[in-house]
């Protein structure tokens, strides 16, 4: 006899009962579910690690982005492998973010409760990080360093940027000072001496006029919609003429001052009066306007040339034995000179390393941070540009005239104003300069209009 299959239908009442039970179970489960609570950052490293911990390292190295990033990525991989070999109880998991979003990511993730450990950060945004509180205070850890070790880092303006109200929230990994890269061969062709590049702004302008010929522009700059515009071009000229972008006492923007007007006029004249800087500098990207154009031979001088691009000069063959730094470093096709603005009117920053406030392993994260900034590891970090440690500068590798010029530039460098609203300040000034350049708007009035707009929202904050 065939077995009779009994199919039991679920009655409406049963269905409701089951659904209610399920919902109650879910609700109770939710209530008793342990919530992850970030432990308070402890300055004491864990005494003995019984099981491996994994820390995350937020970086910005994309090997496909540019040749320079390829070198950075290789360095990062080597650092992780070496560290894990040395400390088998700690695993490092790199996590990639775009360089211009990594700071915002840290802030947003902190607000959203997403954990990170070691993070790269930008010195210009340290005031914002401090206000939000997404980085831990590194002071208790750094206090355990020998005094010389602290001095080795604290000489650079970047160290000061990462110190907010006596709280150290970051440690510099290098010195990103900017200089002017110039083509020695084009100098010779124009009858200029490549061994004595311009030292003052007037000399630089005269050289730019002599070098502008055909498809070659005498002086490359960038005035696009980016932070680079304020940092590398507008601010140095404002400082050069004795002005400031922002007043720390009143917390007001002050870029429409007499110095600001002069700075904007210099920039305007470069494009439209002297015609030594291409109009295309008002758009595109900083990388294209300076690095790519300089390497392609479209610029005789590239102003705002970052020390992180030394590797690209080496790869192109413009300099020899300079990356990694060697005593035999020589300037072949290209040379560098200190930005010819007044002393102290040059911008310097660098990537800093910080520890995210939600890190569950701050002690291990700091151990990794210390490993990264060890002299032997920082030495060939391409994106460091220049050594963050002053002691490294006395080594034979950095005694060439090429590197000594970078050191001079770094010593003269200064950071951007420590306003919490720095991105807004940078965007406002870039947009203002663009309006002046593109629409040929009256300089003083336009600067005032944009300054008032910024102050209406952010003055005093």
């Amino acid at each position: 006899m065939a077995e009779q299959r009994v199919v039991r239908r679920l009655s409406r009442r049963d269905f409701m009962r089951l659904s209610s039970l399920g919902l109650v179970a879910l609700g109770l489960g939710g209530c008793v579910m342990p919530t992850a609570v970030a432990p308070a950052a402890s300055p004491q490293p864990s005494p003995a690690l019984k099981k491996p911990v994994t820390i995350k390292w937020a970086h910005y190295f994309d090997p496909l982005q540019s040749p320079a990033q390829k070198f950075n990525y290789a360095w990062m991989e080597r650092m992780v492998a070496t560290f894990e070999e040395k400390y088998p109880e700690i695993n490092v998991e790199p996590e990639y973010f775009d360089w211009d979003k990594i700071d915002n990511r840290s802030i947003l993730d902190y607000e959203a409760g997403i954990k990170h450990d070691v993070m790269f950060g930008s010195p210009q945004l340290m005031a914002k990080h401090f206000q939000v509180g997404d980085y831990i205070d590194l002071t208790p850890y750094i206090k355990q360093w020998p005094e010389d070790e602290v001095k080795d880092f604290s000489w650079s303006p970047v160290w000061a940027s990462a110190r907010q109200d006596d709280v150290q929230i970051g440690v510099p990994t290098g010195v990103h000072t900017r200089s002017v890269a110039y083509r020695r061969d084009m100098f010779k062709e124009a009858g200029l001496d490549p061994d004595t590049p311009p030292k003052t702004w007037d000399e630089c302008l005269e050289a730019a006029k002599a070098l502008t010929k055909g498809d070659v522009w005498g002086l490359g700059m960038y005035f696009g919609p980016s932070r680079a515009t304020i940092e590398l071009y507008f601010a140095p000229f404002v400082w050069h003429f004795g002005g400031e972008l922002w007043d720390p006492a009143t917390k007001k923007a002050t870029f429409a001052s007499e110095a600001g007007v002069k700075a904007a006029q210099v920039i305007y004249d470069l494009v439209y009066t002297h015609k030594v800087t291409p109009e295309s500098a008002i758009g595109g990207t900083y990388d294209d306007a300076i690095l790519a154009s300089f390497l392609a031979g479209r610029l005789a001088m590239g102003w705002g040339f970052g020390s992180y691009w030394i590797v690209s000069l080496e790869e192109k063959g413009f300099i020899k034995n300079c990356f990694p730094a060697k005593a035999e470093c020589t300037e072949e096709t290209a040379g560098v000179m200190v930005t010819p603005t007044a002393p102290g009117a040059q911008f310097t920053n660098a990537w800093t390393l910080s520890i995210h406030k939600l890190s569950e392993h701050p002690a291990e994260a700091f151990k990794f941070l210390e490993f990264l900034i060890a002299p032997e590891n920082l030495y060939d970090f391409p994106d460091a540009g220049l050594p963050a440690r002053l002691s490294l500068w006395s080594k034979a590798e950095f005694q060439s005239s090429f590197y000594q010029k970078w050191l001079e530039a770094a010593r003269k460098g200064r950071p951007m104003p420590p306003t919490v609203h720095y991105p807004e300040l940078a965007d406002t000034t870039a947009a203002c300069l663009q309006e002046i350049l593109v629409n040929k708007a009256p300089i003083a009035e336009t600067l005032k209009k944009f300054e008032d707009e910024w102050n209406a929202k952010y003055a005093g904050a």
Partner: protein
Amino acid sequence: MPSTLERSIAFTRRPGWSLYLRHRYRLPYLLLLPVVLLLLLFLAWPLASVFYFSLRRTPLGEPSQFVGLDNFALLFREARFLGNILASLQYLVGVLGLSVPVAYLAAVLISSKVRGAGAFRTLFLLPWIIAPVVSAILFRTMVDPYTGPVARALETLTGRKYLFLVNPQLAVITIIVHSAWRSFPLEMLLIAAGLTSIPQELYDSAKVDGAGGWAQFRYVTLPLTKNQLFVAVLLITIWTLQDAEGVYSLTQGGPGYTTEVVGVRLFKEAFIYFNVGIAAAIGVVLIALSVLFMVFYLRVLGAGEGQ
């Protein structure tokens, strides 16, 4: 004798009817409940939170404060924000003005019986499936003054350099062309759906009446694809008004604030400056703009409906 409707109304007014209805439809309503809850969670809540935050000042790391309409007052006092709205309207008009005719032509092509119509259908859909950031980079590369094929070709033809992302007019044209290029496939698909539903007899009789190509389009095609056109225009309007990624990737709102449309401004305020209150206020303005356009389209394109 009472009509069917009157009888139905009388029936529903019998004593105990309400109780019967509640009992009868309890299960369907309960089954709908999860969807309703999800909609409330993912649509109503975010929408309500936009209005809530637009009335507050929310600095990161500090408690938020109720500021009434201050965020709106701050925005509407700014020349920059009024410029943002104008830039958005200009962008929208440009995108619709360019994409709708192209979409009609493409729709006619892909719904015709010409050889290779299928290939065109696939080809025309490509812009729609490419991520906006990728297509923006593609456009930026094409208009690069030194290496971009478009800029170089124009320079060769005219003998002067074209700085697409520096010249304000060219920058506006670039973002419009980019967005129109990305928008027309969706419009094309919707219009093509309408085109295929038009009986051939209507065209045949129009021809008999002496209607030429334009008259056929005006008196047959356009009226009979009006519904699809309405949906397409409405979708593209909302899409364009809210667009931030495409424009930001191309120009970042520059030069100056020329291409800083409302969506880009919102993105900057929310994710670069972290001014949540201002960003939410901009969001409310965007919603209001979208609703305004919806009402306008309903009046213009919906006029004559049912006649």
